[in-house]
């Protein structure tokens, strides 16, 4: 039909493709799931790709979405074609500018991967709550339901916006569309040129602000004219729907793909119609095809143009036969009498009816319902239930579909077995690990099939909530027609199980159809695999007549030099077994794809992969299936039977992958969850775990302090406790005066350890006879699992040591404190979590934590289980995540409460002094809580007080009971990453530091936005490659510490545990002890640095030794003692910056892509490090000189 290329892309790339070609200026900021659009734009710009106008767009990363919107507004006002990409909270931050941009009738398109707005919880997944929050802004809204539509409607948005002057929000569903890979026809630059009338662009530029023809906008208007002026834009909005339709018509002529403001599909004489928008409409489309075939008179109205809403077009699109309508909204407006689309449709009907324009014999009955919040699956079975509901005489209104609401009884029942997946579509599910390359291989397979065959292809990928040992589930479809199945594969004819252990953890065959094929990466070979399968799996195989193939992919990959990357091996097996392509063609295609993927990275990698392909088939075997099951292996419970009921009945179900079946009543009404739950999720993800050698150990505590997952614990205890110890439990005499007479054990949590090996790297002790061994060494986990689990249980039951007995201002002393942050979902070897854990050890029992959105809020608060824990008394950190941008202010709120309610409580104590005893009151009011012992004493006093108050029948006594906890000192911690502290939250952080209030800010500085995949922040060092800095960052790292120090009243410390762990401990203690704002900036190595995570602490050491990250503590208290407040804790640079940098891919990859730039930038970065050190040194000298002369630089 034309020469448009067919591409396999996801929704984000589809939108970015159009946006990049059309715009002059692109302002970007990362937020899931829209980040890849900005990443594409930045990457293409760094490659010098030109837009339609022959120029490389200017791509500017901003400090927040609010900033991006401001920059967009400014660029628009000065005549650029400008765009941005965002989602969720990011879109909310843009709303103020969106009002302005629309108010000024400025053509513009924002591309939004629609995502849930955080309410009772954050969710990164998709629904329309964010775009619905923009209804009032005056923007046009075009909804795309698939990847192809995303590309098409992006272009139509631009055409319509330019002509109508109304800015457009072009949106598609987060993850379902933004991340779904699909075969599409790519629009060409010529298509885009054809659709855009350059006269409108010229008009836009002519309206721009210019001193050559000055005008003024953004005036302040008063009651006399504002209203009238606001109404002046009306004709533009009235014209807009027609303009959009004309653009759609032009587009149809150009491409053959026809769109309408409201697209009706289904029976021309339908009596029941569903109205909806977004990706869910595709599943509905698939469902109605089947329902109509079954004789049902149903129809579907897909809303494309949601704003300006055109009731006339809506009514005209509906069949005259319609009797009942269900309007489905992918959002929730609590308290409203219906969700937005439902109300819009209702209003359209009522208006038409009241004006006598209703084109139906009788007004149809209209009900509204909610579906798909936070990417909840929306399947044809649910669609059918919605139509079935309309059959009823009194269909349920304000219903929900897809959940079981046993509280408000809103939900519709649905029959899960209703299946519309055609048999001629290959439906495959692959269970893999993130680290084994399964998803990458599947993306590759989609490309192969999409490129090499006329088949349509679709891929959707479900990821884990944990970053270490994460499980991935890939859903692939290949078929002869465009695929509308915007839901996970529900009935698979191919299942790939890429890890043996999944067979015992996940219901791998639950979605397999009869005669399906199962491919297992099995270490047991074709003859022995059957005997190792759990009984349930055997039963499923027999009952469903499943064909089973096995390969020992790890052996094949290892032999080909590919280590644990089994992707190529399993991909080859898939093609061999599934028969999607003839075998030889498939192998040639796989090899070709390998060449394309890896060719630029060296022939060696290509050769290894090819070798893996060549050796795979000889190692692939079919397993003979007996007639009856024989296995005694049972699938274990997801959590221990000893865990609390909530953990078993709710969290355990989520762990088992059955969270979708939990009813509304199972879940908290306000987002409040118990802490202390990660302990119940035994993930067993480590291949190797550390083993302690007490004879070599010097008991320094380093292994424990660096452990990112709190899986190495130290306890000292009475030797008599050992009487009931398991036989393999290790113990030795504790060293040090404070431990006299005690024994000591360093114990590993075998089922929680992620096997990162950081403990081994940091261990300074060496075995005297065999220097390769240390006091802690890695050994395979499976043989140790049972014994060490028993040992760990025994260890945990040993009493905690009296905290007063410890020298907690040392590494060793601090590590006898119980971590109240354990087994988090962070990456294996994470550089942040050791600091978080240390904080929890030192202050956890009294801490309130405000956590900025980011890695730390994800590994700290992503369900099912969370790592914040409690001590034996039931105390522990209380944690909350508000937003990304407001965390300092949020934490300050904690302090304001602590101070205010503390004051109020003391006032009440004073008022009640006679009743509770004057001595008691005095003791409580004037308690010294500067040390832990003081806090403990105060807790005891408060406990007595509360008991006493219960007997006093006075309102003040009751009031005091409710605030008595505030009499005990709280430790307020504000946690977040550099994206928060240096960029989006900087203004708030600055204000909070300036407030002088006693809060402790811990910045986990990974020098990139780690959680969203490594985008550049203002902390990113020069010469490092990051997303949004694809060509290497050209300017140096912001010196946040120096800025904070300028206040003089802020405690500031930089720490790097791998360089100086003792200094880290001291800084934490000083920061907390300081009665004012404290800022600790903690260098945190990160997977986004492209390092061997096991070397993380050593790289931290080099960060300090190279001068890149000098260590210091600035303690304003020292000034009152006549000392210099600034203490430098690191030495002048003694290793080169290059030695530090080139151990990390973030720096090194630039030497491979842009060697000249790499060299130039590295020289500058080396200068940055040198100058940074020199600046601190001279400041320290100056402060010291001032202190010596009694001077005081600050009041």
């Amino acid at each position, binding site marked *: 039909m034309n020469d448009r290329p067919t591409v396999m892309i996801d929704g984000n790339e589809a939108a970015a493709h159009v946006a990049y070609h059309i715009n002059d200026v692109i302002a970007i900021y990362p937020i899931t799931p829209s980040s890849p659009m900005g990443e594409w734009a930045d990457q293409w710009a760094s490659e010098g790709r030109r837009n339609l106008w022959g120029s490389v767009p200017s791509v500017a990363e901003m400090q927040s979405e609010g900033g991006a919107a401001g920059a967009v507004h400014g660029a628009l006002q000065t005549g650029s074609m400008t765009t941005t990409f965002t989602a969720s909270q990011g879109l909310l931050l843009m709303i103020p500018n969106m009002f302005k941009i629309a108010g000024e009738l400025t053509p513009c398109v924002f591309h939004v991967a629609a995502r849930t707005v955080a309410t009772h919880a954050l969710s990164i997944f998709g629904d329309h709550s964010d775009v619905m929050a923009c209804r009032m802004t005056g923007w046009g809204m075009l909804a795309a339901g698939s990847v192809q539509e995303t590309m098409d409607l992006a272009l139509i948005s631009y055409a319509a916006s330019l002509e109508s002057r109304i800015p457009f929000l072009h949106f598609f569903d987060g993850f379902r569309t933004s991340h779904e890979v699909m075969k599409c026809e790519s629009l060409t630059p010529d298509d885009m040129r054809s659709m855009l009338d350059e006269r409108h662009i010229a008009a836009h530029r002519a309206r721009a602000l210019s001193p050559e023809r000055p005008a003024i906008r953004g005036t302040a208007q008063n009651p006399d004219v504002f209203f009238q002026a606001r109404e002046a834009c009306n004709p533009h909005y009235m014209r807009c729907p027609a303009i959009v339709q004309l653009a759609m018509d032009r587009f149809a002529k150009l491409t053959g793909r026809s769109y309408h403001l409201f697209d009706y599909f289904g029976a021309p004489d339908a009596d029941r119609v569903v109205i909806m928008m977004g990706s869910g409409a595709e599943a509905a489309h698939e469902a109605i095809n089947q329902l109509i075939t079954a004789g049902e008179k149903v129809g579907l109205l897909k809303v494309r143009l949601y704003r300006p809403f055109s009731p006339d077009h809506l009514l005209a699109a509906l069949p005259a036969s319609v009797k009942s309508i269900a309007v489905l909204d992918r959002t929730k407006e609590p308290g409203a009498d219906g969700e937005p689309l439902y109300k819009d449709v209702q209003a359209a009907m009522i208006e038409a009816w009241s004006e006598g324009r209703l084109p139906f014999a009788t007004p149809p009955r209209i009900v509204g319902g909610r579906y798909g919040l936070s990417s909840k699956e929306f399947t044809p079975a649910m669609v059918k239930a919605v139509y079935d509901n309309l059959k009823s005489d009194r269909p349920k209104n304000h219903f929900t579909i897809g959940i079981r609401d046993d509280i408000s009884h809103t939900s519709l029942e649905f029959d899960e077995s209703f299946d519309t997946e055609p048999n001629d579509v290959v439906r495959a599910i692959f269970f893999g690990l993130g680290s084994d390359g399964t998803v*990458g291989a599947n993306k590759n397979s989609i490309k192969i099939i999409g490129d090499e065959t006329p088949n349509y292809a679709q891929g959707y990928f479900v990821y884990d909530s944990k970053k270490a040992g994460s499980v991935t589930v890939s859903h692939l479809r290949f078929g002869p027609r465009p695929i509308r199945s915007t839901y996970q594969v529900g009935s698979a004819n191919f299942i790939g199980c890429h890890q043996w252990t999944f067979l015992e953890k996940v219901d791998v065959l639950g979605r397999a159809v009869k005669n399906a094929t199962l491919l297992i990466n099995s270490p047991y070979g074709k003859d022995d695999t059957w005997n190792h399968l759990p009984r349930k799996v055997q039963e499923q195989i027999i009952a469903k007549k499943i064909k089973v193939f096995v390969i020992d992919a790890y052996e094949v990959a290892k032999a080909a030099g590919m280590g644990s990357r089994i992707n190529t091996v399993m991909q080859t097996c898939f093609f061999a077994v599934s028969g999607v392509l003839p075998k030889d063609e498939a192998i040639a295609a796989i090899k070709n794809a390998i060449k394309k993927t890896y060719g630029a990275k060296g022939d060696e990698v290509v050769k290894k992969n090819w070798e893996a392909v060549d050796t795979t088939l000889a190692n692939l075997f079919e397993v003979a299936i007996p007639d009856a099951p024989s296995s005694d292996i049972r699938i274990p419970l997801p959590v221990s039977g000893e865990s609390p009921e909530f953990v078993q009945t709710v969290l355990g179900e989520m762990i088992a992958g059955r969270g979708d079946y939990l009813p509304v009543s199972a879940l908290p009404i306000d987002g409040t969850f118990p802490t202390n739950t990660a302990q119940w999720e035994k993930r067993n993800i480590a291949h190797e775990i550390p083993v302690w050698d007490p004879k070599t150990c010097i008991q320094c505590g380093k292994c424990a302090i660096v452990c990112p997952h709190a899986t190495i614990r130290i306890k000292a205890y009475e030797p008599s406790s050992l009487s009931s110890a398991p036989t393999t439990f290790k113990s030795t005499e504790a060293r040090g005066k404070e431990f006299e007479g005690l024994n000591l054990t360093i114990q590993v949590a075998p089922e929680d350890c992620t096997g990162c090996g950081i403990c081994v790297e940091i261990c300074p002790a060496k075995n005297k006879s065999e220097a390769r061994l240390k006091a802690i060494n890695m050994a395979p986990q499976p043989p140790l699992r049972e014994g060490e689990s028993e040992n760990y249980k025994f260890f945990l039951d040993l009493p905690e040591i009296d905290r007063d007995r410890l020298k907690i201002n040392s590494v060793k002393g601090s590590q006898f404190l119980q971590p109240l942050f354990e087994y988090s979902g962070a990456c294996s070897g994470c550089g942040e979590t050791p600091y978080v854990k240390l904080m929890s050890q030192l202050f956890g029992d009294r801490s309130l934590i405000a956590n900025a959105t980011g890695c730390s809020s994800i590994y700290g608060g992503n369900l099912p289980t969370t790592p914040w824990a409690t001590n034996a008394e039931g105390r522990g950190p209380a944690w909350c995540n508000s937003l990304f941008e407001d965390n300092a202010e949020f934490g300050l709120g904690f302090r304001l409460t602590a101070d205010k309610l503390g004051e109020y409580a003391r006032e009440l104590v004073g008022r009640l002094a006679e009743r509770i005893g004057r001595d008691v009151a005095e003791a409580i009011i004037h308690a010294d809580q500067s040390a832990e012992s003081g806090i403990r004493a105060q807790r005891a006093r408060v406990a007595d007080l509360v008991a006493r108050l219960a007997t006093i029948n006075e309102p003040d006594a009751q009031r005091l009971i409710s605030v008595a906890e505030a009499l005990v000192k709280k430790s307020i911690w504000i946690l977040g990453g550099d994206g928060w502290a240096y960029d989006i939250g900087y203004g708030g952080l600055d204000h909070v530091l300036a407030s002088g209030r006693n809060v402790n800010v811990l910045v986990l500085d990974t020098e990139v936005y780690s959680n969203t995949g490594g985008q550049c922040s203002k902390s990113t060092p020069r010469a490092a*490659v990051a997303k949004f800095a694809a060509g290497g960052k050209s300017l140096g790292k912001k010196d946040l510490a120096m800025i904070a120090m300028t206040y003089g009243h802020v405690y500031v410390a930089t720490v790097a545990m791998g360089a100086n762990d003792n200094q880290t401990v001291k800084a934490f203690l000083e920061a907390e002890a300081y009665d004012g704002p404290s800022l600790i900036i903690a260098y945190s190595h990160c997977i*986004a640095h492209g390092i061997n995570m096991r070397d993380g602490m050593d790289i931290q050491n080099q960060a300090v030794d190279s001068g890149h990250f000098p260590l210091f503590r600035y303690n304003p208290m020292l000034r009152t003692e006549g000392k210099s407040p600034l203490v430098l804790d690191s030495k002048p640079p003694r290793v080169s910056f290059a030695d530090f940098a080139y151990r990390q891919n973030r720096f090194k990859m630039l030497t491979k892509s842009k060697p000249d730039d790499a060299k130039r930038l590295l020289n500058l970065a080396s200068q940055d490090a040198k100058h940074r050190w020199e600046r601190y040194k001279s400041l320290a000298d100056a402060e010291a000189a001032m202190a010596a002369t009694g001077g005081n630089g600050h009041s």
Partner: protein
Amino acid sequence: MNFETNYMGMTLKNPLVPSASPMTSDLDGIRRLEDAGAAAIVLPSLFEEQIRHDAAELVHHLEQGTNSYGEAITYFPEPASDEFAIGPEAYLKHVDEAKRTTGVPIIASLNGSTMGGWTDYARNMEQAGADAIELNIYHVAADIDVPGEDVEKRYIEILSAVRSAVNIPVAVKLGPYFSSMANMAKKLDEAGADALVLFNRFYQPDIDLELIEVVPNVVLSNSHELRLPLRWIAILYGRIETSLAATTGVHSAQDAIKLTMAGADVIQMASTLLRRGSHALTDILDGMKQWMEENEYESLQQMKGSLSQKSCPDPTAFERANYMRALQRYM
């Protein structure tokens, strides 16, 4: 006085050639050496193993952690597929730029790890403009199952393969650890070597008593180390066809003169240049000229090999008797 020498068929204006070292890794260093009088430049070695390692490392780090977590599908921007220069591109560019920058012959140095690597990269170097190639067969025969003859055979195979792959001269830089060094030299000669560079100094690891760790230890050479090449150049001079380059232990004009008398066509140096800078080369050159003038030599050619085993009054001085006499004196 004619100071020229012939090295692998190339006429060099003098015998002093900086060997592969960090000084020859950048153009400024090369320019300085040329200005100081260097007659040719040996570039640092292209290590095939390094290239393979870098490629694997790049892929590993680009893939590490990817496709595992919904918010971070990847961690790095990935430049367009043709943007990575992961192979020998940077090295070949250096060869090209060195050629354009200087007027002296540029000798590329290659350390391969596979037969395909040796030949492919040698061809690349020739195409990039290298005047000659030095094969840096850096091999520590540590495998107790590999007999000496296999080691020797491998040297010959590598040389033969490269020799047939390129048309420019090929030198072989090798270590002294052969049971029959002279015979090995002859075999290499027969296999087509245009020069032997004697000898490679292997990095010798050390033990750090503070860390209780084995650590790499690069020690720059001293003058006394030149005795080893001195002996073997003297023995080989005139007995094989190849040019002979001395390397290791050249720190003074006297050192260079001694090696020339033993029969070296070219004197390579690195340690002294790293210690003292490029002007050390000028000093040695001036010193050689001065000494030769003072001692009334007409040309370098006249002096070359004058005290080789073939030409010296006591040929056994270079063989076992030397050791015996030393031993007797000690006794």
